[in-house]
């Protein structure tokens, strides 16, 4: 009689790590379930009759999904998988906010599990693998992906990339290159600017030649995808700029125009790129685990430090604009934001009025005016209308959060928080440690 081979150390507990990582991720993102649909979500789901029929699916695939870009301007997102996901989203969950957001949370948990398994398969110790997986799904940008339906295509792109990466380890040069190219194209078809995640399988290739070839293929696929599937008015230069800026803190871009997708994409690429380096650092498991943990801690610390520095840098930039700005409108805007960031709503008041007078259609001053109206006891309907207009002036939820953080610090008024929640569907945010708007 032949006995079965002995179990590998820890095999009996192999299955305990991924439920824990998935549950932690899901719990961390559970607040997204309370979110309401944003304007962009309503435009894509509720006010979009194409989601109702098969013929509508054809229209969505041909014309793209209705989307908002900059100050509430309507455009179309041509990414076909995003269109399919929107169509299926309505077909399965209609406009039910909790169910719609639950799908995002589930996808995020799936991403966590896939990354965990990917890292575990690279012979990493389980705690380090779990830490790495969580560092991705608990990245600050990750909340933007579960908080708005616009994040779903990006999650799909990341999921595809990591799932493919788990299978390239034993593939040959040609297969790896083809997989990287297809992954980049598929990711772009999910979200036009997310093709970079094609680098994830490329970096997992077994040989150096394969890594180089696959990386070139992935970059080519990402470029092709970005040109084909990005928003109509997005230039290649803007995509490249966003790819860099997304990894860096928000205030370095004026205004914060980039979306969360590239942030997460670059984060995943960076984390996976570090794996071979760390794997070479020593044969002993304890060293690798320690290095992995140190890497994550250092990564988060660096992020926090950059964010803190950026806050001060942004203050300095605004001060420069307020003192020596050539454009009176931007001077008023900078002065208003400076006062708000210093929690002086009264000082901001004249600049709000000035900005509203000089740029009445942009809606940029409406948030400040709404805050002033609340403190003066104005009816909540008027405040809500103002806040809705102001919220619509932002590109995405991350940018909205950045603006809202400035207001939340300056207006510690429960009535304002309530009006904000009613107008945008989100709780008024407060700064996390080390976070800049």
């Amino acid at each position, binding site marked *: 009689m032949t006995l079965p081979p002995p*179990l590998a150390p820890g095999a009996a507990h192999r299955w305990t790590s991924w439920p824990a990582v998935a549950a932690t991720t899901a719990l961390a993102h559970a607040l997204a379930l309370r979110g309401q649909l944003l304007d962009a979500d309503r435009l894509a789901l509720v006010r979009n009759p194409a989601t*109702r029929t*098969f013929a*509508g699916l054809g229209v969505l695939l041909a014309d793209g999904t209705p989307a908002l870009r900059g100050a509430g301007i309507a455009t179309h997102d041509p990414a076909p998988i995003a269109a399919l996901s929107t169509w299926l989203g309505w*077909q*399965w969950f209609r406009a039910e906010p909790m169910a719609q957001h639950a799908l995002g949370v589930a996808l995020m948990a799936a991403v966590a599990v896939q990354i965990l398994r990917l890292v575990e398969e690279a012979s990493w110790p389980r705690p380090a693998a779990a830490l790495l997986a969580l560092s991705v799904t608990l990245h600050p940008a990750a909340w933007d992906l579960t908080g708005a339906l616009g994040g779903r295509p990006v999650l799909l792109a990341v999921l595809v990339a990591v799932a493919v990466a788990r299978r390239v380890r034993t593939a040959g040069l040609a297969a790896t290159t083809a997989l990287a190219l297809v992954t980049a194209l598929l990711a772009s078809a999910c979200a036009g600017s997310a093709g970079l995640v094609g680098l994830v399988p490329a970096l997992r290739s077994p040989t150096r030649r394969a890594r180089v070839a696959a990386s070139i293929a992935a970059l080519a696929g990402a470029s092709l995808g970005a040109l084909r599937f990005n928003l109509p008015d997005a230039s290649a230069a803007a995509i490249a700029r966003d790819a860099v800026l997304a990894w860096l803190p928000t205030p370095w871009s004026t205004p914060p125009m980039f979306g969360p997708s590239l942030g997460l994409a670059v984060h995943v690429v960076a984390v996976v790129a570090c794996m071979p380096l760390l794997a070479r650092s020593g044969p002993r498991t304890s060293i690798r685990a320690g290095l992995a943990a140190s890497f994550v801690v250092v990564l988060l610390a660096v992020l926090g430090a950059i964010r803190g520095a950026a806050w001060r840098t942004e203050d300095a930039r605004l001060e420069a604009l307020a003192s020596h700005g050539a454009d009176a409108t931007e001077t008023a805007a900078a002065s208003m934001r400076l006062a708000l960031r210093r929690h002086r709503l009264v000082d901001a008041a004249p600049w709000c009025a000035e900005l509203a007078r000089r740029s009445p259609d942009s809606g940029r001053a409406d948030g400040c005016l709404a805050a002033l109206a609340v403190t003066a006891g104005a009816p909540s309907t008027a405040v809500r209308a103002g806040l809705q207009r102001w919220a619509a002036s932002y590109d995405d939820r991350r940018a909205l959060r950045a603006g809202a953080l400035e207001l939340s610090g300056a207006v510690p008024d429960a009535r304002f928080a309530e009006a904000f929640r009613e107008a945008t569907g989100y709780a008024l945010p407060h700064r996390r440690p080390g976070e800049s708007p």
Partner: protein
Amino acid sequence: MKRALVVVAVAVAGIALGVFAAHRGVDEWSGARLRAAVAFAALGWALWLRSRRRAGTPVELPVAHGVAAGLAVIAAAAWFDFGALPSGTALHRHDVFHYYVGSKYHRELGYTRLYACAAVAEAQDGGETAVRARDMRDLVTDHVVPAAAALDHPEECTSRFSPARWRSFRTDVANLHAGMSGAAWAETQTDHGYNPSPAWSALGGTVARVVPSTAAGLRALAGLDVVLMAGVVAVLGAAFGWRVAALALTLAGVQEPGKFTWLGFSMLRLDWFALLAVAVALLRRRRPGLAGAALGLAAVMRGFPALGIAGIVLAGVGTPSFARFATLRRRAVVGFAAAVAVGCVLGAAAAGPGAWTEWTSHIRRHAAAQASNKVGLGVIVAFDPALRVERVQAAMPGASAETWMQAWADGARSAHERSTLPRRALQLAVAALWLAALRRARRPWIGLVLALLAAPLATDLSGYYLVYFVLAACLAGARGGVERALLGFAAGVEVLMVMPAVAWFYDDRFLAISVAYVGLAVGLAIAFATRPRRV
């Protein structure tokens, strides 16, 4: 003990969750979501067990079995929409009217006078105004006509009844009408009539004569199918073991075609299904004569189960096992033939000597009539996007329901006729595939199940007949992966049923169901026609 505890814990927790999810009521869409959730849970558990087994750390048996059985109990609760049944559904009066009245008065009504005589009875009981205001289906022409037409010559009905039988008929019609709204009653009178065979009329008529049409009597009748469904699970459990029984119960609970709103609390709509389950179980337990008899009775009740005998006869053909089961096959055929003969005689005795001839021509006419809940290969082959109900409605703005429905039915009928040649060609190809599958089936009971699964490819059926696909659970032990495939299939169908683009219009819904079930049958046939993979 541990297993029982796990079953109870899982079932109680799942049913509590289901009741909570359904406490605000269940409609078409939320019902499909609930069933999909249960199917996904069962699929997830099956995949988990497989993963653990492959990893060398299998889940301990009491837990594995307990959770699966608990999920099956939850699925059974899902069939009842976790108790969130609309008020008044303790009896499916629409169905019971057809089956109760149609079988009890078969000699007088035949297959063409049900609605006309009901209209006369209603008018005589003081409802003439209502009758003149509503429509009914003329079961000779299959067209919807004003019900007042029946009142022009009431003697065409009354002359066929004895005075006592006519009084009884009026009472029964009034009793069944009593619990229905005007709209629901009017809808009942434009359905497609009473269609079971004379043999079923013998059975149903006997039951209907014994059980009065009072509220209590009808409720008792409605409970029979629940008992039959429980019996099916018990019989499969006895023949195939707990796992097949749990799988069958899960599939029965989360299925779309035989869901509660179609079959629940009706009258003996599952008798043939129970007979098929008994036939498969008896064949598995090597009782071929009785198995053949059960199959024969199912065949004389509903016709299409007769296909099953081909499966028994051809299982293992061309292989050494064919000779091995020669005696068993012979006994099954004898049992089948005897039951068919008895059924025919009983049917003729109960419904009259010409009843079988009348039924044959009626069922041909009924099969040719177009209904949006038909399923089968013919529905798929005849599909024409221009004839979808949505398009027909859009092309006739402002037209009455009757007008566009007639236009749709005419178009669908001609599309069906046009597609005869490709349909026959496909059926020939499918027959070759089934022959290959039966050759490898080796066991007569596998052949029986496989042959039954071919029914929607051989003929178009009303959608709810697909409930018998639950018997595919028996194949779970014969080929690896069948259990997961069936659970995935059930979940997939319910996911489709959640989508308005698929399920809003009934013709689209049943087209999707046709594609899914024909695909499943073909997939299973391919799985059996090819050599099983060694694990």
